[in-house]
């Protein structure tokens, strides 16, 4: 990565021991639209705000939550184009795994490899860290799982988490509402309520996106109509 003229890293330590570029990347994430995820006993739900810059934008063409494999999906907070690069790389890694082992990639392995890519960009020559945090949700042989991956390349498995704007409020809300035996339907309602807390304006199926994966191991993004139905239930 980077040509010979840039064979030195642009991410270097500050005297206090921090990698400032990563701190700034996290700030970029913190300014991004809120995303959250909740792991239920029988599935995982991830949700994100989908605030478009103008009412003229065709919301059907914007897909913030994306599929990596049939049983793994990802939401992001931060810079959209950076997330697309990571989604593309993750999809390729998942396919390479499948070609080698003839088995779908376990979620923990996919997250590990994606995180390794993000870490590379904090140490390679001539590149900057990714300006996104990812929430990766999936269902594999180890059950439902939710992972968060940061620009530094660190990753954590969460029962429930939020990233982007308004995280502290969202996390406090989740902490209060989360129970270990929550089922997927409850988790979806809780996710919507959490998004609603910090939402500016009228929430609807057109300005949020929700992705779920249950025991059928098929990740799917809910249609705006389905989201509106859940919103009505929550009222």
């Amino acid at each position: 990565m980077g040509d010979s003229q840039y064979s030195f890293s642009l991410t270097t330590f500050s005297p206090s021991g921090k990698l400032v570029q990563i701190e700034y990347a996290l700030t970029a994430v913190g300014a991004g639209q809120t995303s959250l995820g909740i792991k239920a006993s029988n599935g995982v739900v991830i949700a994100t705000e989908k605030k478009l810059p103008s009412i003229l934008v065709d919301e059907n063409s914007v897909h913030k939550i994306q599929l990596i494999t049939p049983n793994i999906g990802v939401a992001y907070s931060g810079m959209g184009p950076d997330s697309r690069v990571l989604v593309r790389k993750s999809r390729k890694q998942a396919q390479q795994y499948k070609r080698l082992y003839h088995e779908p990639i376990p979620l923990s392995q996919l997250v590990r490899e994606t995180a390794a890519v993000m870490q590379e960009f904090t140490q390679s020559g001539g590149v900057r860290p990714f300006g996104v945090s990812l929430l990766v949700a999936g269902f594999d042989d180890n059950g439902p799982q939710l992972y968060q991956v940061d620009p530094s390349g660190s990753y954590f498995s969460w029962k429930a988490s939020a990233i982007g704007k308004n995280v502290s409020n969202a996390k406090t809300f989740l902490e209060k509402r989360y129970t270990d035996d929550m089922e997927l339907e409850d988790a979806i309602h809780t996710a919507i309520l959490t998004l609603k807390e910090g939402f500016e304006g009228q929430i609807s199926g057109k300005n949020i996106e929700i992705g779920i994966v249950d025991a059928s191991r098929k990740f799917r993004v809910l249609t705006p109509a389905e989201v509106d139905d859940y919103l009505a239930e929550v009222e």
Partner: protein
Amino acid sequence: SIMSYNGGVVIAMKGKGCVAIAADRRLGVRGHTVAMDFQKIFEMGPHLYVGLPGLATDTITVAQRLKFRLNMYELRENRRITPKTFASVVANLLYERRFGPYFVEPVIAGIDTKTGEPYICNTDLIGCLNEPDDFVVSGTCVEQAFGMCEALWEPDLEPLDLFETISQALVNAFDRDAMSGWGAVVHVIEKDKVTVRTVKTRMD
């Protein structure tokens, strides 16, 4: 022919909740027998074995490289590999050398510890997988081995009967081949234990 330079044969059979894998022990240089204790079957896991008949140098090298890949897998994924997945790893390793191959035609035998399901398969020297339900053979006397296995094998053999069957099939096959023989070793793999036996054979 490169594949018959060192000589040797490996067969594997499926039984009831068990698998058996057996090989001869000869290492030759064309017609000259050089060793009677040459290992062709390697342990890749507590219930997973791979037999590598063919060119002896590749037998050793492929066994080492497979073990390397296996260890990396188990460290990364923090779990034991299943026989089916291992077969894919073997096929991948061989196909990587598609235009300058390893001269081995592996035989894989194991039990999936999660399901208790027995598994056997073999590949050609460039990684084409073959996964039958009964038996697999590979080496310099495949024709003889196929004949013996076809005649003696029946489904759902208990471990002790499977041992007798595979031993007779192997010994009588390599007794009709100048390049194989000089002793036999048989592994019988069950869900909870593995029994290794050396068979007394004609030493010629």
